[in-house]
């Protein structure tokens, strides 16, 4: 289904959905930082800045309770979290590099173990993608097979037009349901010219070639060369739309507490620290190697997909300037 919506009507749509009690998540400023957060009204939405963290947290929050316990006398009471109580959510103005990561995450969260927390949120969320007009020199979506107008992962996709407003394309039943719920706000598809989209200046990687090099080079001097400088924080993994490792911790007292699922990162030394004290990834290059291997080899081996959408967030925020696009390019040249 193809339609048109004016910018004003898009705001009206968002406000109407909020008034109906729907949870709307979109880019907004939070204490001075652009993040995907619930909106109070449409005026809070900003679309000209890439949110600092990705949209994955709509399905995979950085911290979530999965169970609680309470002890009284000899009795221990366990209470599960009921995922059916997760709210229906509409994610607005999602960048193509964020939306494209969502089907990539579906693969791992519905693999041998069905992660009901992720999957229930996924079922209840409608993703409204927005074509991207603001790339910088950290962006490399075009190098990993995507583009600023890629509709992968979007239920509805907005393409901005000259003179304001958007052409809207629906790809799923959820997308059509959203249009049909407020059909008076949409008009027939417009013939107006599309706004010039972002144009990341990176050549496409030969991902098959990159993977075949990785297949053979678990041990290679490249890893020391690029990652001795890595300081071992989790910033790259935490801003990544596709990284999905988590840790489960019990926090509380002996009387009561909660079991929580938190984001984790392979850059941390304790990520692979065994209870015995042994750590198979004892030095930082071995940890950084895992980041590249997981994104461009292991995930491909298992699910036939690349675990990177070229959003460039890790490139921008790495404290020591580690540039994953430059590294994959170097491997691509080998």
């Amino acid at each position, binding site marked *: 289904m193809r339609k048109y919506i004016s910018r004003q009507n898009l705001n009206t749509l968002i406000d109407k959905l909020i008034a109906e009690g729907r949870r709307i998540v979109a880019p907004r400023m939070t204490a001075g930082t652009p993040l995907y957060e619930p909106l109070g009204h449409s005026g809070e939405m900003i679309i000209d800045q890439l949110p600092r963290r990705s949209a994955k947290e709509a399905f995979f929050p950085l911290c979530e309770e999965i169970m609680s316990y309470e002890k009284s006398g000899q009795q221990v009471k366990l209470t599960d979290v009921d995922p059916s109580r997760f709210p229906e959510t509409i994610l607005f103005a999602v960048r193509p590099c964020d939306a494209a990561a969502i089907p990539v995450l579906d693969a791992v969260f519905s693999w041998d173990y069905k992660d009901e927390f992720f999957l229930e949120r996924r079922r209840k969320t409608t993703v409204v993608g927005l074509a991207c007009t603001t790339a910088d*020199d950290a962006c490399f979506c075009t190098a990993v097979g995507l583009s600023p107008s890629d509709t992968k992962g979007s239920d509805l996709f907005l393409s901005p037009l000259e003179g304001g407003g958007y052409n809207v394309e629906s790809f799923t039943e959820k997308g059509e349901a959203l249009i049909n719920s407020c059909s008076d706000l949409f008009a027939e598809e417009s013939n107006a010219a599309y706004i010039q989209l972002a144009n990341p200046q990176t050549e496409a990687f030969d991902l098959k070639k990159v993977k075949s090099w990785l297949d053979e080079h678990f041990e290679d001097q490249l890893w020391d060369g690029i990652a001795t400088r890595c300081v071992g924080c989790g910033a790259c993994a935490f801003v990544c739309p596709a990284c999905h490792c988590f840790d489960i*911790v019990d926090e509380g007292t002996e009387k009561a507490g909660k079991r929580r699922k*938190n984001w984790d*990162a392979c850059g941390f030394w304790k990520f692979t620290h065994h209870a015995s004290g042994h750590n198979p990834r004892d030095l930082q290059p071995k940890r950084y190697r895992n980041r590249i291997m997981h994104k461009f080899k292991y995930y491909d081996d298992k699910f036939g997909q690349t675990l990177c959408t070229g959003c460039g967030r890790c490139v921008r925020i790495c404290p020591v300037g580690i540039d994953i696009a*430059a590294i994959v390019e170097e491997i691509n040249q080998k």
Partner: protein
Amino acid sequence: MNSQLIDTSIYADISRFIRDESLRILLEGEVIAVVGYAAGRRKGSVQPIIACDTESAGRLMFSQASVNNLAVYLTKAKKEIPKSGKIGIVLKGCDLKALVGLIGESQLKREDLYLIGVPCSGVLASTVHPATELATETIAPKCLECDAHLPTGCDFVPDVALPPQQKSDLKYAVEIARLEALTPAERWAYWKEQFSKCIKCYACRQVCPFCFCEQCLCDRNKPQMVETTPRPAGNTAWHIVRAMHLAGRCAGCAECERVCPMDIPLNLLNRKMAKELKELFDYEPGFEVNDKGPLASFTDKDDQSFIK
């Protein structure tokens, strides 16, 4: 205030001096490696490198994007860096203060190091692209309060004439005064909102030269000392632990604030603690090696008014 360009013309000469000196000390076997800066892929970007050969030493440079405090690579927390011989390191004045602090805390020995000091007019703020020109609006806030443009006590300092430094608004001093004027409830609301953004990536800890604990208190789980979850209680606890542990030690390199992916103004906490230390003990970290910081020693001149 209008933005004014800051003269960085000496940085090209400094780059040449750093390369020549690094090549010399590597070739003569004086050091086994030089920790310095090299250009990255993105225009203007700079990243730390550990140069062990002439090829990589030939890439050493310095520019307004040379933001990192490289002293972090010398601590025992960084096991990847060879420690089997003397190490050369490129340092700005602010970085050198941290290194001096590490020597004072018996973490480093001066004789194991070859210090290449950089006469510095300032580096870029974390909020701007690395290819940006240095100006009063794009400079890192710490540089506006810098008293260490010219490092002292180094083995080598490029022979360049440092241009006169421009005076500008002191952003930290102004912001600390603003926060001090708030009521405790307002101040709490401010920090609560800032800490709510924390994602516990620990970038602040990992880049800090003084966070050299081999196992951070916050990584312990037998027993757990601080909630690891990125929720208000755990986030606040972490940032208070961090600020307190750095009091009297932090030399103001502001790396914690620069690297925070969530823009939490962490250096405000450090500067506030430094202000308290200055008022209570007339102490400031500098270029002089002190075996005992003010919070690790007692003299009868210490303020005792808190004893009622």
